[in-house]
C-alpha cells in the first residue's frame, strides 16, 4: 500500500511529457494521471455542448478512451490539453449530428452532479433578491449561448466555461487565432448585449 502511495506521488509529480511517454508504453498509472489532470476540462466542454446527461457521460468516457488509444498519433504537436479538447469537441459534434439535435444548455442546472454556482450562492447569500437576479442572468446566458451559431457556441464554451486561452482554442478547433477572435467577439457581443439589456 505504501509502495502504491509512493508511486502515486511520483506519478503526480511527473511532467506531462514523461507521463505521455509512460502511458504510450502502456503504463496504467501514467494514463490515469493524464486523465485525472484533464478530466474536469473534458467534462466542462461536453457538459456545455451536449444537451443530455447520458450523452455527456458517454462522450466523456469515449474522449478518455480515444485519447489513450490514439496517444501515438499525438506526437507532442501542441499541448495535450488542446488535443484532448479537440477530441471532445469532435465527439460532441458527432453525437449532435447523429442525434440531429439542436444543442441547448438546460435552463436549470441539474442538481445530481453537485452544487451548481447558483446553489452555492444561495447557500452563502442571505439576499434572495440577489440570488434571483443571478439565477435570471444564468438562464439568460444559457439561452443566448444556445442560440449562437455552432462555431461561436464552441468558442464561447471553450473560453468561458472551460477557461481556455485563445491559442488553445485555436489549436483545439484547428483554426487560426484570428478566426477564434472573430467568433468570440460576435458571441460575446450577443451575450453581453442580452445581459445588459436584462440587467442594466
Amino acid at each position, binding site marked *: 500500500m505504501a509502495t502504491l502511495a509512493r508511486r502515486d506521488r511520483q506519478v503526480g509529480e511527473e511532467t506531462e511529457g514523461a507521463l505521455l511517454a509512460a502511458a504510450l508504453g*502502456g503504463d*496504467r498509472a501514467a*494514463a*490515469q494521471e493524464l*486523465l*485525472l489532470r484533464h*478530466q*474536469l476540462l473534458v*467534462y*466542462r466542454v461536453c*457538459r*456545455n455542448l451536449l444537451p443530455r446527461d447520458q450523452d455527456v*457521460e458517454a462522450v*466523456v*468516457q*469515449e474522449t*478518455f*478512451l480515444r485519447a*489513450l*488509444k490514439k496517444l501515438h498519433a499525438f506526437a507532442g504537436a501542441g499541448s495535450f490539453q488542446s488535443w484532448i479538447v479537440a477530441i471532445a469537441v469532435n465527439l460532441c459534434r458527432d453525437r449532435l449530428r447523429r442525434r440531429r439535435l439542436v444543442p441547448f*444548455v438546460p435552463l436549470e*442546472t*441539474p*442538481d445530481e*452532479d*453537485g*452544487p*451548481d*454556482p*447558483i*446553489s452555492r*450562492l444561495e447557500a452563502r447569500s442571505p439576499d434572495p433578491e440577489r440570488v434571483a437576479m*443571478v*439565477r435570471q*442572468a*444564468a*438562464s*439568460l*446566458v*444559457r439561452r443566448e*449561448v444556445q442560440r449562437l451559431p455552432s462555431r461561436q457556441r464552441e468558442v464561447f464554451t471553450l*473560453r*468561458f*466555461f472551460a477557461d481556455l*486561452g*485563445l491559442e488553445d482554442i485555436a489549436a483545439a478547433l484547428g483554426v487560426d487565432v484570428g478566426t477564434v*477572435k472573430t467568433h*468570440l*467577439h460576435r458571441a*460575446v*457581443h450577443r*451575450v*453581453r*448585449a442580452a*445581459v*445588459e439589456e436584462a*440587467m442594466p
Partner: protein
Amino acid sequence: MSERHLTDEELDRWLSGEELDQEVAEHAATCLLCWHRRANFLGAVAAARAAEPEAATLERWRETALERWSGGSAPRHRWWLAAAAVLFLVALLPVVAHLRAPRADLDAETVVQEVDTLLASDPLTALAPEELLETVVPAGGNATGGGVS
C-alpha cells in the same frame, strides 16, 4: 488617462481576453462604470456554468475508460458481431441441409456395362456426335476408301 468610457467593441475585446490599447487599458483599470459592465457580464457567465460533477462520478468514468483501454473488460457494442454470426449460420443452413441429404448412389457396374455395350456396337459414335462423324467419315464409299487420319 482618457475619460472616455469603453465602447461596446472595446468592451467585447476586453471580455474576450484581448489586449487593449494602452490608453483604453488605463481607463478600464480605474473606471468603476467600465469595471461594473465587465463584472456584470462575467458574473452572469460564471453563474451559467454547469455544475461540476462529484469526484466519484469522474473517477468511475475514468476507470471505465482505463479498463477498456487496457483490455480489462469485454468490449462493448459488439452485439452486431454476434448478430452477423447468427445470420451467417442461418444462411448456411440450406447448404448444409443439401450436403447432408441422402443421394441415390450410382451403380458403377451398370454404367460400365452400358459403356461397354456402346463401344462394342459403334466405338466412334460413342466418342463423337453423329454430325461430326458424317462430316469426317461420310456414310458413302469414302468411308471404306481410306481411314481417318
